[in-house]
């Protein structure tokens, strides 16, 4: 299977402090890949760098064979990579419908079909179409953030802790949506604190610790790994 995204030797530093130290990772086309690890490990930084909003110190980021390192965020979006940022970051001063439209900012074609598609995935958003996004609940905002990302018609959707702070029922719904999106052919790169659920849906996983990749394997392998059980799955086990 070919890799849609290949990262080699990614180094990112914030004013001299290295947040990501020379990592490499592959995202095979059509799969769900998850990146787990403790707070501060450098997961969000990795995704922000792929999106172009953080500039790497050095890196090769190849997407469908094209080198994207150093390119602007709008160029990267136009190539089919989108990020659902940590903490949802919906535009609370825009309506639900506008949030979706702005997700398709670079597109010039009709958005009608895409809006209907997103409303089909998240009927609650349809009901709240004209509400300001700031008035939505946390779960609804997360749905909106995912819907907004889908509006750019991505080939690769990256999600940064989509389940953070949400009720278990909503978390389940979000994971269902991740699977649905993936089944429709969109590759997923998922960051999660909820390692248990993430590894269950993932074809492949990476474990990140203090800026480095400590382990990689299929979702099932990592789920069965003793070290990981102890470090990341302990608390989440029911």
């Amino acid at each position: 299977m070919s890799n849609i995204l290949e990262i080699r030797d990614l180094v990112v530093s914030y004013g001299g402090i290295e947040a990501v130290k020379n990592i490499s990772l592959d995202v095979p086309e059509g799969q769900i890949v998850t990146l787990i690890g403790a707070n501060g490990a450098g997961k969000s930084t990795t995704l922000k760098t792929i999106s172009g909003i953080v500039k790497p110190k050095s890196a090769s980021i190849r997407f469908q064979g094209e080198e994207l390192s150093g390119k602007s965020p709008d160029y990267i979006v136009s190539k089919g990579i989108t990020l659902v940022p940590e903490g949802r970051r919906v535009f609370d001063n825009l309506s639900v419908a506008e949030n979706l439209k702005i997700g398709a900012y670079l597109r010039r074609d009709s958005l009608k079909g895409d809006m209907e598609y997103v409303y089909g995935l998240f009927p609650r958003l349809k009901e709240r179409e004209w509400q300001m996004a700031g008035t939505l609940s946390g779960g609804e905002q997360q749905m909106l953030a995912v819907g907004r990302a889908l509006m750019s018609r991505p080939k690769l959707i990256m999600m940064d802790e989509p389940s953070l702070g949400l009720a278990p029922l909503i978390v389940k719904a979000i994971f269902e949506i991740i699977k649905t999106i993936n089944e429709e052919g969109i590759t997923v790169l998922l960051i999660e604190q909820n390692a248990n659920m993430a590894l269950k849906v993932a074809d492949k996983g990476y474990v990140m610790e203090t800026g480095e990749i400590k382990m990689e394997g299929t979702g099932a392998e990592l789920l069965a790994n003793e070290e990981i059980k102890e470090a990341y799955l302990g608390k989440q086990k029911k």
Partner: protein
Amino acid sequence: MSLTAFLQYCLTGISIGGIYALIAIGYTMVYGILRLINFAHGDIFMMAAYFMIFAMTDFFLPWQVSVVIVIVATIVLGVVIEWLAYRPLRSAPRMSIMISAIGVSYLLQNLATYLFSALPKGYPEIPFLKQIIHLGNVSTSLVTFITPILTIGLVAALMFIINHTKVGMAMRAVSRDFETAQLMGIKINRVISFTFVIGCFLAAIGSVLYFTPRATVNPLSGALPGIKCFVAAVFGGIGSIPGAVVGGFLIGISETFIKAFGYSEFSDAFTFVLLILILLIRPSGLFGEKQTEKV
């Protein structure tokens, strides 16, 4: 005060208020998007007056053509200032960019002094705009009469752009969250430049309306109106366009009546008293949002 005099003052106050509103919008929009108080805005307004002198007095162009030139030149000036003095400080602490703005303000004042001397220069006559019209018992110049109408029209157009166009939506998004706006594919620098284009466009029109009934311009002519309009924006809730408009009209009308009642020397001080009162009583202004620190 007779009814006629009262109406006369109302019209004068509404007119100057409309001009203040146009300038205050420039402060409030730039603040909304960059969280920057563009201290140079009043001086950009002053430079617009010199552009008019250039076009009409030095190049003998008709006023209609000159107004277009003033608008274009003022927009170019504002966009270049943003590009040179604010953009390089995009990720610097907010205080740095504020200081840069103060620096640009003094730079423009001194540049104008150097280029045009500190002596007042005659503002060109626009007979068409200065013609006297009669509305019942009240007589006024055409410019006084059309200023509020023009203001309302421009504000309506602006609100339409902001609320119903794609670039307006991008402006609202950028004003809330740079990083996420970038993730949508928005080129934030373009949106910021566009904000300066609008602010300077309105300042250029405000400048023509403000100076036409006045005889002269000097390099400090923009300072006091600039501060008043800044106060108008703060009063309305900085970041809010309707707030800036209400604030502009309120200050214009208030100072006109203060002058009418014979307290001319107090009319400018009033602005500052107002500023202190707002900051004490309701720092977020009339329509301002609660203080939310930008992340």
